[in-house]
Each structure stands twice: as C-alpha cells, then as structure tokens.
C-alpha cells in the first residue's frame, strides 16, 4: 500500500490529464486533427508554502524510493460531510459512467469533484463531469473524465469526500534556511498516477 502524505501546507495545486491528446496541424496551419489515447490519467502539480523544518519532516516520504505515495486532494470547498460507505455498483463498468451505491442519501456531488476508486490495492482518480444528487436509496450514476481505464470490481471502495491521488512523486527536496530559524523555502512536487 502507498505511504499517505499529510494534508495542508498547500499554496497551490493544479491537476492535469496525461498524456496530452495527440494533436497535429497541417503545414498551412489551417487544419487540425486530434486523437486521444485510452488510458489517460491524472497528474497533480502541488506547491507547498514555507514551513518549519519539523513540519517539513512530515513530508519526508515524498522522496521515498520504496513505495508510491498518496496525497489527499484538497477539495473541502466543494464537498463536506458524511459520504456513507460508497462502493462500485456492478463490476466491469466501462466508458464515462460509473454506478455507485452505499452513499449518504441526498448528498450532492458537485461538478469537478475528484473521486478515487480503489481496485486491486491501487487508487484510480476520476473527475465528475457534471453534478449529481445521490438518490434516496444511496445510488448515483457518476459522469467521469477521463473514461474508466481499469476493470473495477463490484463493491470496490470509492472515496468521494476525501480522495487521495496515488503515484510516484517527483520532488527535489526541501531547502532549509538555518539563518531563518530553519524555515524551509516554498517548494513543489508532482504526483502522477501509476496508470
């Protein structure tokens, strides 16, 4: 299982889908073509603000060489409250719609919410294309991007309120400033899903 990174200390974060679509333009610059590779996934660029070295120590697993890391996607501004026990409703779903159940009835899942599905011990992050309100029986049909890229099994765990993105981080380390009370400089890392 991946190493969980702490929350907080984030100055900025930016999600992007990777790989980018294969776009080509004619030599005249007047025509364009594009195709998308199935299996696109998310990459997050995260900037951390300056922090005390003791706080920075909590992030030291960022450059761990043995395990993937899992970073909590900060989306408190979009959703809060109890999600219930969301699970995938039916195995082998493909395309851009994922049916889930076990969710708190009436919960509103806003557009652009990130969710994570845990299959085979690995998280797969998706983003909601449109808002959805959970039904009275706790079911919902989520419209996702990118399209589903793994065979999720029935009753796989879904993280709605506090999803984590899991992957290997690219991180150059903290710069500690002894003459400023060992405060670290602002830094950044990138975490890309495993696939």
């Amino acid at each position, binding site marked *: 299982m991946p190493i969980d990174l702490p929350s907080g200390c984030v100055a900025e974060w930016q999600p992007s889908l990777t790989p980018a679509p294969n776009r080509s333009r004619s030599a005249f610059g007047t025509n364009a073509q594009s195709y*998308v590779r*199935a299996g696109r996934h998310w990459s997050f660029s995260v900037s951390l603000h300056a922090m005390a070295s003791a706080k920075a120590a909590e992030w030291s697993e960022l450059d761990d060489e043995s395990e993937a890391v899992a970073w909590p996607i900060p989306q408190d501004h979009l959703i809060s409250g109890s999600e219930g026990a969301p699970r995938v409703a039916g195995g082998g779903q*493909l395309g851009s719609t994922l049916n889930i159940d076990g969710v708190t009835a009436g919960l509103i899942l806003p557009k652009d919410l990130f969710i994570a599905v845990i299959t085979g011990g690995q998280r797969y992050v998706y983003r909601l294309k449109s808002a959805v309100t959970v039904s009275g029986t706790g079911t919902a049909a989520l419209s996702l991007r990118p399209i589903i*890229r793994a065979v999720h099994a029935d009753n796989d765990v879904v993280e709605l309120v506090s999803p984590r993105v899991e992957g290997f981080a690219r991180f150059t380390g903290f710069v500690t400033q002894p003459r400023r009370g060992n405060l670290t400089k602002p830094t950044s890392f990138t975490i890309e899903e495993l696939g």
Partner: protein
Amino acid sequence: MDALLIADWQRANPHAFIALELALTAKTLRLTSGGVAVFGGETYGPKDDDYGVLSAVGSITDGLDGVASAPDITLMVKTDAALAALSADQGAFWTLYWGSVSPSTGAVVGTPETLSSGYINTITPTFAAGARPVVIKSYTDEQRMLLRDASKGWSAAHHRSVWSGEAGFDELPGVKDKVYWRANEPN
C-alpha cells in the same frame, strides 16, 4: 478496415488503443497501450502483475521488395519469473491490434484492425536509467514467405518431386524467373 472504425477515426477526438495478444505456454497475455478494451470475447487490460506493461511497438514497415515487417515489441516486465517464461517461449504467437473505444460506453468500436502478427524469436533484457525494458525480437509469416530454400522452387529437383520421371526441366538451367512483388531479383 472495419467501416465503423473508419467512421470513428473521422470523429473529432477518437480514443485510440494498441492491443497485444501473446499466447505464452503459461497464459495468454492480453495488454493494451492504456485503458481497457473488450473484443473477440476477451478483455485486454493496461498491465499484468508479472509481465508488466506494453512499452513500445517498433515501426511496421512494408512495401519494399524483399523486405518483410517484423516489429520489435517492448514490455516493461515486472518479475524475473515472467522474464524467464518469455525467454523459454520462443515461437509463441503474438498479434497486434489497433482500435478505438467509445468514450461514452467504453465499448470497442467495430472490429480492431490487425496490425501485424508473428512469433517470439529472441528476448533481450536491457538495463537503462530508471527502466528495465525487455525487447522481443520476432519473426513473421511474411518473412517465411520470402525465405529461399530448396524445398519448393523453379528447379528440376522440385519439378521431379511433383511429377516424378518428368524430365522437362532437366535441360532448362536458364529459365528466367518472374520477379514477384517483394521478391529479390534472382542472382
């Protein structure tokens, strides 16, 4: 090429995949370049716990005389056991497909195009910074068709093997071969 697939390529943003089917002794490996594709009653996934992921497919060249396509296939193998199994499976048959999926349903559009097929010849593990790719060199039926051997040919010996006692070719050493498409000029 499948008409539905052609129509899909003409859309604004088709979702493309490459799929590899490799019939090993231990298991039939079915990998995609990314995502999940279900066709021919089989499910192709993005990775295998032992054999890893499909990393690269060499260029598939065609059209020159005497040249047959035999693309290299590169896997990022995860376990040593899988590497050993691959190298012990010389002659295992593989097929490469090129297709697209519908982004709304995830269903494969029409029938994926069969790009190439062949057999494992040699396995070459290589070691590089941050990667351990395994290159599969192959031979293909196309190459076999271009082989020049003594079994069948425009020769007196082969002619006699088909029509025993028919000596018509014995005195014709200089019969001019027709040069078929992709065959070399006779020496």
